Each structure stands twice: as structure tokens, then as C-alpha cells.
């Protein structure tokens, strides 16, 4: 027996299964993830780190120093938070290093560990080079910008992997609303990561330097909105999970925030305040998107309909795989 089963006995259950006769007392067929809020938070912070690193590298190469500094520091903060969330979520945090025993392409979590292991030092080095201004003049302070640029470009090269592998992490499960969204989730998360990175840029940089962040905000928010809409409407039965109460609340909020953030990014050309508000809205929208997607997975795992019906239809259609 599982702890969830006990919880549902005591009245904390989700939605009941409509066709209880074709299930075992309406019990779920699969187990829902036991991940705590850490993993939802990590989906956001990982994307944030990725988006910020991309923007930082572009800012560095085009001489936008304040945009670069803000984005590098944000990516280091997001990376640090990510590491903490990932370790804190483990059943045995002290055994975190066991992740480094193997390199397994069949495990998106293993690949993610190695992506983070490669990205982390680069993002950290890029952020550390920002302290160059406070160091006394010397060899270190002269070498740092070059080191920072190389590390920042390397981090930006790895960032797109960091921003999208988490979609594969969720899709490579038996959770129906995630697995069946495997074609679309990478674009949801890519858009969400870009939007959140752009949000940092809009918050951190003066008006003269945020042009690229504005364009990234619009493109990222548009991708986030479009790909999320596919989840809500084009996945057949699984879309019902995305449109059910808790996920829909988050996704509605995400839609409003992303749209508002993009509009503020475009219209805020002459207002630092409006730009910053837009940035904050994009960040909040990205959080809501991650929460909505995560919650939809939990809904689809808790109700046996989402697991059984598509499999039954496949069998009845004679398409056993």
C-alpha cells in the first residue's frame, strides 16, 4: 500500500474515476511521482538559468555590459537554487554523488546530471568574472574578462540542452499527460526558459541595453503560449488533464502573465518601470507554466481513465504495439 492510497482513503482524493467498473475500485494504475515541490521549482530555475546564460553571452559579445552582468548573476543564482532543489528532493540527499556513477542515455535524469555538471562550472566562472571590477589591478583582473567570455559562451552553448532536457525528463515516464505530450513539451519548456531569461534582462538592464531582451521576451512568450495551447487542446483525452481544475488555473494565469509580459516588453521602450514589470510578469508566467504542466501530470496519474482508455482503444483497434 502507498501513502497516497492512505491519503485518498481519508478523503483527500482527487477526482473520482467515472467508469469505476473498468478499474480496480477507481485506484490509479500507475504511481504518481513522489517528487516534492522542489522538482516543479527546479523546472523553473533550470529554465531560468538557461535563458539567462543565452542572453548573457549575447550581451557580452555585443558589448551590453549591464545586461551581461545581470544575466550572469541571475544564471548563477538559478543554478545554485537548481542544485539545492535537486539534492533536497532526493530520498537520500547524502547519496547525491551516486548520480555520477553512470552515464546513461536511456535516463534523462542521468543526462541532465551531466548537462548540469558541465554547465554549472561554466556559468559559475562567467558570473565570478563579474567581480573583476572590485579586484585590485593585476594579472587576475586583466585575465578575468577573457575567461569570463569563454566560460559564458560555453555556458550558452550548453544552455539550450539544460532548458529542454527537463521536458524529456517528464515525458519519459508512464504519466499519460506527460508521455503523450512528448512531442510538444520541449517547445513549452524552451519558450518558458527564453521568456524567463528575457524577464531577467528586462529587470536588470537599463533601457538602452534591453532591445534583445524585448525580442527574446516576445518570441519566448509566443512559443510558450502556442505550445501550451497544443497541450490543452490537441492531445485528445490527455488534454482533459491540462484543462482540469488545478492545472487550468495555473495555465490560465501563465497565459495572462506571459501575454502581459510580452506586451509590456514591447510598449515599455521608454519606461524602465514598465519594462521591469513586464520582466516580472514573464518570470511569474514561467513559474505558472511549470506548475500547470506538473499538476496536469498528477491529475492524469491519479485517474485510471487516463492510463486505461487509450490502451484499451489501442487494443480494440488491433494495434497492439
Amino acid at each position: 500500500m502507498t501513502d497516497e492510497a492512505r491519503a485518498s482513503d481519508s478523503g483527500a482524493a482527487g477526482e473520482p474515476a467515472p467508469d469505476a467498473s473498468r478499474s480496480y475500485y477507481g485506484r490509479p494504475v500507475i504511481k504518481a511521482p513522489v517528487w516534492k515541490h522542489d522538482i516543479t521549482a527546479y523546472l523553473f530555475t533550470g529554465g531560468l538559468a538557461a535563458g539567462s546564460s543565452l542572453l548573457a553571452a549575447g550581451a557580452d559579445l555585443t558589448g551590453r555590459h549591464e545586461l551581461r552582468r545581470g544575466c550572469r548573476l541571475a544564471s548563477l543564482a538559478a543554478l545554485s537554487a537548481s542544485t539545492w532543489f535537486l539534492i533536497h528532493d532526493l530520498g537520500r540527499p547524502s547519496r547525491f554523488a551516486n548520480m555520477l556513477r553512470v552515464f546513461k542515455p536511456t535516463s534523462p535524469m542521468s543526462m541532465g546530471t551531466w548537462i548540469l555538471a558541465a554547465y554549472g562550472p561554466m556559468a559559475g566562472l562567467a558570473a565570478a568574472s563579474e567581480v573583476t571590477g572590485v579586484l585590485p589591478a593585476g594579472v587576475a583582473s586583466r585575465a578575468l574578462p577573457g575567461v569570463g567570455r569563454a566560460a559564458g559562451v560555453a555556458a550558452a552553448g550548453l544552455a539550450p540542452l539544460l532548458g529542454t532536457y527537463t521536458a524529456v525528463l517528464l515525458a519519459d515516464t508512464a504519466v499519460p499527460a506527460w508521455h503523450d505530450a512528448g512531442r510538444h513539451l520541449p517547445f513549452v519548456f524552451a519558450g518558458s526558459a527564453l521568456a524567463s531569461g528575457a524577464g531577467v534582462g528586462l529587470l536588470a538592464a537599463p533601457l538602452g541595453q534591453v532591445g534583445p531582451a524585448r525580442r527574446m521576451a516576445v518570441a519566448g512568450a509566443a512559443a510558450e503560449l502556442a505550445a501550451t495551447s497544443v497541450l490543452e487542446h490537441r492531445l485528445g483525452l490527455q488534454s482533459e488533464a491540462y484543462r482540469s481544475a488545478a492545472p487550468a488555473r495555473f495555465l490560465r494565469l501563465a497565459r495572462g502573465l506571459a501575454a502581459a509580459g510580452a506586451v509590456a516588453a514591447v510598449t515599455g521602450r521608454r519606461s524602465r518601470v514598465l519594462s521591469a514589470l513586464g520582466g516580472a510578469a514573464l518570470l511569474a508566467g514561467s513559474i505558472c507554466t511549470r506548475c500547470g504542466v506538473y499538476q496536469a501530470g498528477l491529475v492524469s496519474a491519479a485517474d485510471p481513465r487516463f492510463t486505461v482508455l487509450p490502451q484499451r482503444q489501442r487494443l480494440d483497434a488491433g494495434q497492439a504495439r
Partner: protein
Amino acid sequence: MITERSRLLGSLDPAAGSGYVEPPPRVGFFTDTSICIGCKACEVACKEWNGIPQDGIELTGMSYDNSVGLGASTWRHVAFIEQRVAAPGAGGDETGVRWLMSSDVCKHCTSAACLDVCPTGSLLRTELGTVVVQDDICNGCGYCIPACPYGVIDQRRSPDGDRNVGLAQKCTLCYDRTGAGLEPACAKACPTDSIQFGSLDELRKRAAGRVGALRAAGVADARLYGEDPADGVGGAGSLFLLLDDPEVYGLPPDPVCTTRDLPAMWRRAAVAAATMAAVTAFAFLGSRS
């Protein structure tokens, strides 16, 4: 649609596929639910032999089932299903009751999703073709739990002080007994031989013979579950003879190992990642502000 790849995976000996040289015959279970009497001796024997802690003593109201389902501390689970059926001589009125009982267990899949997604290498394919968790390696990441298409493996969360709290736990097919030439505790304790242990080849033959005999005797609903090497998990190491659709027992009717779609998912992620890089380049090119 049966692909060439799934045929290949299905015919593969999982132990040989994992690198064992000339492994012993693959072993498994055949659970014949038509002769299960619901005594739960398997549940008790499993708990006793494997030293599994108590995980709640409550009445669920689900017939005689108070252990609810497989979990971190329930490695054998007996399902009880009460169905209204036409009583003999009652003119078709559904006044009779049919009682289905079935002892569920880990399927020890040929294509095991839990094993594929484990990021530490804790989940291991044994030389016998079974799948076990190495308790000293698992770090409790929990990825195997939503990966299993049957909802078998789970994280142990209680009692406080139990040495395996936080770790993923499931049936080992009594690896410590089978290695010494003994049958698993559940099969040993089963008083009707509803649970049979043996080499998978032998069990397949027995299962086919039994389902044929039952059908010949008029039990039209008898069917095998998990025996098809062309199914979504490449065939299970635990075969079942069921008397109704799998979903009635809480089993997925057509489970698929999720990593079968993983290459396609990585390709989509690669396209999305390239899009991220392109959007960033676009954001900086042709820009003056």
C-alpha cells in the same frame, strides 16, 4: 503495429542483452488466478522473508483487500473483485456473485522502464533476467516510480528508522533465495500453486496449457497476460492467467515501456534546443538598441 525492433527486443534474453555471458535460464512467475483462494499467504510470506515493515493496518471497504496495491512495502498484493453475475437457474437475473482473486507482483519486464531511467545504476538486471534495486546505491531520486507502466515500484516513506526509508523498493523475485536454488517465498507459501516459479520457458508452456484446458472446460474469459514477447514491454517475466480484462484487476491493458519513445523525444528536444539558440541569435542580430 509490431515493429521489427519490438520483435528483436522481445526475442532478446534480457540477461544476455545486459552483458552476462552464457547466463542461466531466465526465471519468472506464473500466477494462475483461476485457482487463487485469496488466502494472502503470499503477502505474509513476502513480508516475513524480505523483512518488510508494516505499512498500515486499516480496513478499506474494498472487499477483503486491505493492502490496496503494490508499493514500497507491499511486494505481493492480492486483489479481490466482487462481480454480479447471472445465478444458475435464476433466469438470467444477476443475483449471483463471482469473486475474482489475483496475487499481483512486479512484472520483471524484458524492457524495464525503471531500469532504463535509473540515473545511478541502482536498478540492476540479474543473471536470471530479473530486475532488482541495489539498496546501497539507490539515492531515492524517485524517477523509476512514475516510469513503471504498472505502478509497481515506490519509495519507502515509513516507518521512521527503517534502514530503507527514502529508497525505491520492490519485489526482487527473492534474489537471495533463487541464487541458493530455492523458490521465492510467495510461491513456496502458496497453498494452491496459484503462484508458480520456474524457468520462463517452462512457465510459458504451462500457462499456454492451462489456458487451453480452461477454455476447453468452458471458461471462455480465461486469457493470459504478459506472455506476448511482442507487447509493449517485450513480454513480462511474471505471467498471469486472468478471468477478465486486465484493467478490472488494476493492470494496464496494453502497457508500453516509456523509453521505447525516448529517441523520438530526444530528437524533439534537440529541435527545441536549436530553436532556443536561433531565437537568441535573432534577438541580437539586426538590433541597434
